[in-house]
């Protein structure tokens, strides 16, 4: 426990240095570009969701789209938050792998629900210096339409999705709270989260 305290204090001192490359990486995101990106990614996704291909094939296609469109590493690190620096390099790698897998499996497990889905772009607004929130209206048969906001940032010169906001609730904030809670309840061990994620991915298989 005390060792971790020392570690986190040291980590805190090193924070400005660690954040410098992040700040350099964050560039101004053009609202029009972000909207066009969400439009094309959304069309691709909807086409796969509505296709009649076998589930396994659709899952592969969805996985490819997500890997391309989502800043999996950045978002994964944001969600792990303060525990990222507590985790060993091996745990970090394992975590990112499980995180990507859970994204894909979660969506794949809901293919049935998304049958017949349609979406349209709503108003789009720049929220901060670095990212743009693109609003979409998602409609499914027999279900109330849903407003989903996609937070798009420029990562490595490409627009990438970094968050999904449903009715005022940010997915990455919710998930950070969820993961941190699992770690704390598992005796402040990142391995407790990894075990839970592994079990979860197994269940969604």
């Amino acid at each position, binding site marked *: 426990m005390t060792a971790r*305290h020392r570690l986190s*204090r040291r980590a805190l001192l090193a924070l400005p240095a660690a954040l410098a490359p992040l700040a350099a990486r964050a560039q101004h995101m053009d609202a029009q570009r972000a909207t066009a990106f969400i439009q094309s990614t959304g069309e691709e996704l909807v086409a796969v969701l509505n296709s009649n291909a076998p589930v396994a094939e659709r899952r592969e296609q969805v996985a490819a789209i997500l890997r391309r469109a989502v800043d999996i590493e950045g978002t994964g690190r944001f969600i792990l938050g303060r525990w990222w620096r507590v985790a060993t390099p091996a745990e970090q790698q394992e975590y990112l792998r499980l995180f990507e897998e859970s994204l894909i499996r979660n969506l794949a497990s809901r293919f049935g629900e998304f049958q017949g889905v349609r979406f349209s772009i709503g108003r789009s607004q720049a929220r901060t210096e670095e990212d743009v929130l693109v609003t979409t209206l998602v409609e499914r048969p027999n279900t109330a339409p849903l407003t989903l906001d996609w937070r798009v940032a420029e990562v490595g010169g490409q627009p990438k999705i970094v968050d999904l906001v449903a*009715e*005022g609730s940010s997915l990455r904030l*919710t998930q950070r*709270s969820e993961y941190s809670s699992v770690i704390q309840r598992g005796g402040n061990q990142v391995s407790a*989260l990894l075990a839970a994620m592994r079990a*979860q991915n197994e269940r969604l298989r």
Partner: protein
Amino acid sequence: MRFSPALAALLLLFTLGACATRPPASDPEALAEFLETNDPLEPANRAVYAVNGVLDAAVLRPVAVAYRWVLPQPVRTGVRNVLGNLRGPTILANDLMQGEMQRAGITGARFLINSTLGVAGVFDVAERHFGLRGHSEDFGQTLAVWGVPEGHYLYVPVLGPTNSRDLIGFGVDSVLSPWFWFGQGAAVEALRYSRVGVTVVDAREGVLDTLDQIERTSLDPYAVIRSGYRQRRAAEIANTGFQAPEAAFGTGIGVGPGLPSPRREGAPAR
């Protein structure tokens, strides 16, 4: 609305309940997160959450499933509209107390139109024919607008996620409603109790899919609901950033777990 014994028992539980350990100042990040989570009564809250989960699985959820199964969508929408319309005066009072005159005007007009042309609120004529979209308000939001902090996060039976401020707001809203004061006798009492019963069933049916989804995919549903509730309340209080829940869904009770809120089928979203 006679909650006193249950409420007293609840307060007792929270006072007796163990508190979550506050991280030491030597761990600033853990402390920051502890303060941000705002759940010092977590052990007691989790205990209530667990008990409530058992009761929910045994009673509330099956009733909500049956309700959805037995009544067709248009009937359920009508029920939801009636409940929303009954909350009209409460929403109006809160609009006024927040100084939101334009929103108060909309709420007042909606109540008049829907109570008459909408046949006691069954049909949302105000939105369909007059373009007056409903919104929700409650006294918890009014307190927030007045600058009252949220207090601690609380998880209470049946109502679900809330906090000290919103729980007080819920109590005030019940008393603020004209339906609390008008009429007497067995028939009126019976109507009052039925309204509470139907509200609970309607609210539970509204979050059926969302809660099932959280239960199925979350590693810690309690933490997800807590985070979702707080974020959604912040957005509701700001009246911006997302589509406000329609009048009918603001049951005023904290059943909104933060993910997609219940909404009438077929209602235009923005």
